[in-house]
């Protein structure tokens, strides 16, 4: 993406640090970075508010690194401050909730005030996913990347229509091709993560204990055999 060099570690926060004047953003990583004389220096106590300011203009989950870069502090420190800010909002019971989702940070309204917020958010258009769509989404989420044929085999029904809906809603996307069958492979998107409020796929609830203990070889055979049957119409 950007070719900006990694930001150096900023001085660790401490009781004395209050008086330490940090370098202005961008001035540290020299070279291709313009001196940015226009950017004033930040006090230690300004760092979190500066992060808060940036969060206010964010309109998509934003990785800590992008915020770190704008302010000129390390990613670690930024992440630490983001976490502390999120905890502060929670403790103070603010109407704002700072959350990490889909690999980035973003401000959300606090759940409990949803009924009031909804009067201002123009979208009577929240559509619910059907059971079919949810089941299909679940299989794709846990098996990704996965072909339509395989999803069909697991659900026991043709999933083309449902997959199309999920594609249009940008909850899944086509990522590559299966090397054996040549079928298009499906994966979930980052919108999927944000819609579920998950930081990453690792946050998906574990499914393994629920799955039957099938001899893997047999599992392979059965799935390939069934995939053939179910793949009446896989592309």
């Amino acid at each position, binding site marked *: 993406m950007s070719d900006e060099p990694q930001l150096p570690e900023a001085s660790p926060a401490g009781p004395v640090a209050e008086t330490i004047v940090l370098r202005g953003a961008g001035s540290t990583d020299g070279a291709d970075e313009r001196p940015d004389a226009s950017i004033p220096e930040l006090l230690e106590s300004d760092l979190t508010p500066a992060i808060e300011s940036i969060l206010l203009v964010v309109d998509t989950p934003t990785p800590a690194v992008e915020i770190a870069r704008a302010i000129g502090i390390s990613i670690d420190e930024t992440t630490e401050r983001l976490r502390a800010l999120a905890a502060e909002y929670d403790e103070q019971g603010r109407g704002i909730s700072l959350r990490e989702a889909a690999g980035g940070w973003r401000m959300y309204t606090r*759940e409990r005030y949803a009924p009031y917020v909804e009067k201002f958010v123009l979208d009577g258009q929240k559509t619910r996913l059907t059971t079919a769509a949810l089941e299909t989404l*679940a299989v794709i989420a846990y098996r990704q990347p996965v072909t339509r044929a395989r999803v069909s085999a697991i659900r026991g029904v043709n999933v083309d229509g449902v997959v199309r809906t999920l594609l249009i809603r940008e909850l899944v996307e086509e990522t590559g091709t299966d090397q054996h069958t040549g079928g298009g492979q499906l994966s979930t998107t980052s919108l999927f993560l944000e819609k579920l409020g998950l930081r990453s796929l690792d946050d998906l609830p574990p499914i393994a204990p629920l799955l039957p203990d099938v001899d893997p070889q047999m599992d392979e055979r059965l799935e390939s055999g069934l995939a053939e049957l179910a793949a009446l119409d896989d592309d």
Partner: protein
Amino acid sequence: MNDTAPSLELKNATGLENQGTAPAVDRTKFTVHLTNFEGPFDLLLQLIGKHKLDVTEVALSKVTDEFIAYIRALGSDWDLGQATEFLLVAATLLDLKTARLLPKAQIEDEEDLALLEARDLLFARLLQYRAYKHVAGLLAQFIATAGKRYPRAVSLEPQFAAALPEVLIGVGPERFAQIAVRAMTPKTPAEIRLDHLHASTVSVSEQITLMRGRLADAGALSFRDLTDDCEHTMEVVARFLGLLELYRERLVSFEQHDALGELRVQWTGAAADLQAAAAADYDPDEEYE
């Protein structure tokens, strides 16, 4: 778009109570409401759940009749893609059930092994499906919760908007027009239709009518003869199911000397000339569609 099978209600119209193998069915009790099942596994799970049974072999054989009844009750409204999977499951269920009717024997030959394997396969798929169904429920909860948190998404404050560098459209008018065409062309992602493969769903009842005539005329035919003119596997399957139906009505008997050997179908119903009259009374749609 939605692959949910239509909801249906079964009353005593399915003829289940005639099946010699089924336990005596209380006519007044046999009313089943199942709605919105999502395919053969879902149907099977719901049937098993309805009987408060474990997902076990016993349960499977108990629900076999109902499963078949459902398929029949769905009639000819559904597409082949759906029907195939349902029939596959039904065939396995029938197989298992048949095996249970026979005297318990040692696992001796390949056929028995194959049957056991088919059963394990069905269990595995059933449990696998149940696992995904379970997490799908969890995902729905996540979505519901996350849906109550509204993200901040507002316009940039004017001072920052003004600082933005000039944006490039990056394409000329001709290319821009092409993009417009692409954007406005209704999106119908690659879809391979099945219509050209099969003119329509194969109807078991039609196949029965056809076979009735042929068998009554010939007296006896091999299964091979009966299916010689089938163009699709589905027709063969439908004729096989049809024969089971005729057997249930005691209109045919079977004869098979060796395993996997030729299956002779003997007509035991009324003679051909009486068939026409009988067929006139017989309305297959009533029962099958």
